[in-house]
C-alpha cells in the first residue's frame, strides 16, 4: 500500500480536537459529563491517527509528505499555509497526542466536581489542536500563528479558576512574559522574510538555503535572526531570564501543568530551535548563547527547586532546568540529544505532575511540609511517582538516564565547563527529587488527613506513563542510535563514553542518598544549611529575587512613564487646545469691552485704526 496513505490525512489530527472545541463552545453548559467525553474521544482519535502515521513511517522509509495552500497573495508576494509530515513531526505528534489523551482521561476524575468542566475540556481541546498544528506546520509563519494560539490556551487554562486573584495574576504574567519572546520571534520572522531569497519561510527552503547556498544571508544578519528566534524559544520554554512565568503558571489545574507546562507547550521552544537549527548552526555566537543560557538555566532552576515547598512549584522549576538541558544539548550541537530528552521528559514529567495532582486531589494542599506517609495510603501513586523521580534523577536504566547521558556526552566533547555545570545540576535534581519524594510519601502520616487512592481514571494514566518513563529510554542508547538515525538520517552518531555514564549515574545516586539521609534517616539535620547560611537559603527560597528585580526594573518605570505621559497628554497637548479656545473667547470679551457704549470711543478707535492702516500700507511706498 502507498506508504504516505495516513500522512496525507495528517491534517485530521489537529482537526478532531478542534471539532471537539467547536462543539463544546457551541453547546456550552448544556452537557456536563458528556462534554468531558467528547474531548477525550477526540484526543483518542487523534492519538490513533498519529499512531497510524507513526507506524506507517516506521515501516520502511516513507518519503516526507507536505501540502501547502496560499493564504494571502499580494502582488508577487505569497504567504503560504501548509503542513508536512516528517519523522520529527511524527515523533512530536505521538508524544503530544499520547500525553493529551492521558491527561484528558485523568481530568475526567480530577475535574469531576468543577461546574465549568465542559469549558475546561473545550480549552484543552483547543490547546491540543493548536499544539498539533504547530507540530505539523511546515513554515515559520504558520508555526508562529499556532505558537501564539498555544500561548493563549495556556493563558486561558492558567486563569481557569478566574476568581482566584493569584490565578488572574499568573495568567496575565504568563501571557505577557511569553509575549516578550513572541516579539523576538516575530521580528526574526520579518527579518527572515525580507532576507530569504524569494521571501520563502518554509523550513525546507530554509534548510536548503543554509545547506547549499551558504552566504546567501550574511553572518551578521544570520546571528541576529538566530538570536531573535532564540528569544522566542526562551520565552516559551521558560529559559532564564524569561523563566518567571512558568512557576506561577502552576496556579492552573494540575492536569494542565502536566500537559502544557511540562510535556508539550514549553517544549515548543526547543522544537522551534530544532526546526530552525540550520540558522543556528550557521552562527557560532548563536550556538554559544543557546548553550550557555541552557546550562545556566539548568543549574539555576535546579537550585531554586531545592528550596521550594510547593509540590507543583518544585516540579515546575525542575521542568525549567530540564528544558535548560535540552537547550544545552542544542547549543552543543546535539539535536538528537535535545529531541530525545524532550521525548523522555514529556513522559516522566507528565507522570510526576499527574502524580502530584493525585496527591493534591486527596490531601487538598500543595505544601509538602503538610504531607507525609502518603506512601501507605496511595500505593499506586507512590510507586508511579517513585519511578518518575528515578527517571528524572537519571538513574539507570530509567529513560531519563539515557537522554541525559546523551546530552552530557555531547557537552563533554564540546565544552567541559558546560559538562561540569550540567553534572552539578544533575546532582541537585536528584537531591530535590529525593526531598520531594521522601517528604511526601515517607515518614509517618499526619493525623486528620484521610488521604485515599484516587479513582482508576486517574491511576490508569499514571501507570501507562510510568511504564513509558521506564522503558522509553531504550530507543536511543549509546549501544543503538536508532532514534537519531530515524530522526536525522544524516545526523551525527553519538559515541558511547563510559566515563559520562558512570559520572551521571553516580551523581544521581549520590543525590538520592543524601536526600535519604536527610529526610528519612535524619543523620543530616534538615536545616543544616539554613543555620549556617540563612541568607543563602532565603536568597534561593525567594528565587534570587528575580521577580522583585523585574518589578523595579521594568514594571515601575513603565507605570511611571505612563503616568507622566498621561499628565503630558492632559496638560500640554490638550492644554494647548484649551488655551487656543480660551484665547479666542478672551479676544471676544476684549471686543465687547471695547464696545463700552461710548460713541466717541467708537469714533476714536475707528480714527486710530484708519491712521494705522494708512501708515502701514501707504507708508511702505513713501519710505
Amino acid at each position, binding site marked *: 500500500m502507498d506508504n504516505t496513505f495516513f500522512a496525507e490525512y495528517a491534517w485530521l489530527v489537529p482537526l478532531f480536537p478542534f471539532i471537539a472545541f467547536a462543539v463544546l463552545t457551541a453547546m456550552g453548559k448544556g452537557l456536563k459529563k458528556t462534554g468531558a467525553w467528547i474531548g477525550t474521544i477526540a484526543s483518542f482519535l487523534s492519538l490513533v491517527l498519529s499512531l497510524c502515521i507513526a507506524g506507517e513511517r516506521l515501516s520502511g522509509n516513507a518519503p516526507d509528505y507536505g501540502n501547502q495552500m496560499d493564504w494571502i497573495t499580494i502582488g508577487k508576494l505569497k504567504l503560504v499555509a501548509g503542513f508536512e509530515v516528517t519523522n520529527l513531526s511524527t515523533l512530536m505528534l505521538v508524544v503530544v497526542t499520547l500525553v493529551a489523551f492521558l491527561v484528558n482521561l485523568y481530568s475526567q476524575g480530577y475535574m469531576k466536581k468543577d461546574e465549568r468542566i465542559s469549558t475546561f475540556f473545550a480549552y484543552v481541546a483547543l490547546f491540543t489542536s493548536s499544539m498539533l498544528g504547530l507540530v505539523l506546520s511546515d513554515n515559520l509563519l504558520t508555526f508562529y500563528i499556532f505558537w501564539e494560539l498555544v500561548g493563549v490556551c495556556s493563558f486561558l487554562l492558567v486563569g481557569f479558576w478566574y476568581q482566584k486573584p493569584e490565578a488572574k495574576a499568573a495568567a496575565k504574567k504568563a501571557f505577557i512574559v511569553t509575549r516578550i519572546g513572541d516579539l523576538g520571534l516575530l521580528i526574526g520572522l520579518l527579518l527572515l522574510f525580507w532576507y530569504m531569497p524569494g521571501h520563502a519561510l518554509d523550513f525546507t527552503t530554509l534548510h536548503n538555503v543554509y545547506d547549499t547556498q551558504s552566504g546567501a544571508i550574511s553572518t551578521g544578519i544570520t546571528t541576529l535572526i538566530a538570536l531573535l528566534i532564540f528569544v522566542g524559544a526562551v520565552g516559551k520554554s521558560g529559559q532564564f531570564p524569561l523563566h518567571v512565568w512558568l512557576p506561577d503558571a502552576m496556579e492552573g489545574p494540575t492536569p494542565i501543568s502536566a500537559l502544557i507546562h511540562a510535556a508539550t507547550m514549553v517544549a515548543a521552544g526547543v522544537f522551534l530551535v530544532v526546526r530552525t537549527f540550520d540558522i543556528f548552526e550557521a552562527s557560532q555566537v548563536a550556538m554559544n548563547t543557546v548553550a550557555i543560557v541552557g546550562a545556566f538555566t539548568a543549574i539555576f532552576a535546579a537550585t531554586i527547586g531545592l528550596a521550594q515547598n510547593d509540590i507543583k512549584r518544585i516540579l515546575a522549576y525542575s521542568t525549567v532546568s530540564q528544558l535548560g538541558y535540552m537547550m544545552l544539548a542544542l547549543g552543543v550541537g546535539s539535536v538528537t540529544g535535545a529531541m530525545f530528552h524532550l521525548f523522555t521528559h514529556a513522559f516522566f514529567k507528565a507522570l510526576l505532575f499527574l502524580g502530584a495532582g493525585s496527591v493534591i486531589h486527596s490531601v487538598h494542599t500543595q505544601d509538602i511540609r503538610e504531607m507525609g506517609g502518603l506512601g501507605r495510603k496511595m500505593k499506586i501513586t507512590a510507586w508511579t511517582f517513585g519511578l518518575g523521580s528515578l527517571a528524572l534523577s537519571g538513574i539507570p536504566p530509567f529513560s531519563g538516564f539515557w537522554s541525559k547521558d546523551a546530552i552530557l556526552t555531547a557537552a563533554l566533547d564540546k565544552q567541559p565547563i558546560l559538562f561540569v555545570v550540567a553534572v552539578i545540576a544533575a546532582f541537585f535534581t536528584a537531591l530535590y527529587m529525593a526531598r520531594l519524594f521522601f517528604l511526601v510519601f515517607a515518614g509517618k502520616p499526619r493525623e486528620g488527613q484521610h488521604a485515599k487512592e484516587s479513582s482508576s481514571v486517574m491511576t490508569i494514566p499514571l501507570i501507562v506513563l510510568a511504564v513509558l518513563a521506564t522503558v522509553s529510554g531504550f530507543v536511543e542508547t549509546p549501544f543503538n542510535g536508532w532514534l537519531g538515525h530515524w530522526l536525522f538520517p544524516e545526523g551525527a552518531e553519538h559515541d558511547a563514553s563510559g566515563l559520562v555514564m558512570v559520572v551521571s549515574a553516580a551523581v544521581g545516586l549520590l543525590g538520592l542518598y543524601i536526600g535519604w539521609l536527610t529526610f528519612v534517616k535524619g543523620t543530616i539535620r534538615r536545616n543544616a544549611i539554613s543555620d549556617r547560611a540563612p541568607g543563602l537559603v532565603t536568597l534561593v527560597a525567594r528565587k534570587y529575587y528575580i521577580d522583585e528585580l523585574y518589578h523595579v526594573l521594568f514594571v515601575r518605570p513603565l507605570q511611571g512613564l505612563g503616568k507622566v505621559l498621561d499628565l503630558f497628554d492632559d496638560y500640554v497637548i490638550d492644554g494647548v487646545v484649551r488655551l487656543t479656545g480660551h484665547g479666542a473667547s478672551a479676544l471676544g470679551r476684549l471686543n*465687547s*469691552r471695547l*464696545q*463700552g*457704549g*461710548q*460713541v*466717541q470711543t467708537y*469714533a*476714536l478707535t475707528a*480714527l486710530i485704526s484708519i491712521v494705522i492702516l494708512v501708515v502701514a500700507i501707504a507708508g511702505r511706498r513713501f519710505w
Partner: protein
Amino acid sequence: MSMLSSYLTLAAVLFCIGLYGVLTKRNAIIVLLSIELMLNAVNLNLIAFSKYGVQPSLAGQIFSLFTISVAAAEAAVGIAVLIVLYRGRASVNVDEFDELRG
C-alpha cells in the same frame, strides 16, 4: 495754485476741528454742530477745487449745494432724535448715553 493750497489747508483745519469736537465734546448738541463743521470743510474743498482746481468745473459748486441741503436735513433729524433722547434722560451729556454696550 497757492490760492488752492491755502483753501485746502483751511478746509483741512476746519475738518480736524470738527472731528476733534465730535470726539471730545460732552454736549451732544456741540457734537452735532461739529459734524456740520466737517461737512462745511468739505464744501470749502469742493468750491475751492471748482474754482482753482486742475480742471475747474461747475460740478463742484453744484455738489456743495447738495451737500449743504443734505447736511441741513441730517442736522434736523439729529436734533429731533436728540430731543426724544432728552425726554428720556433729561440730559444731553454724551457720556450718559451708554445703556447699549457689551
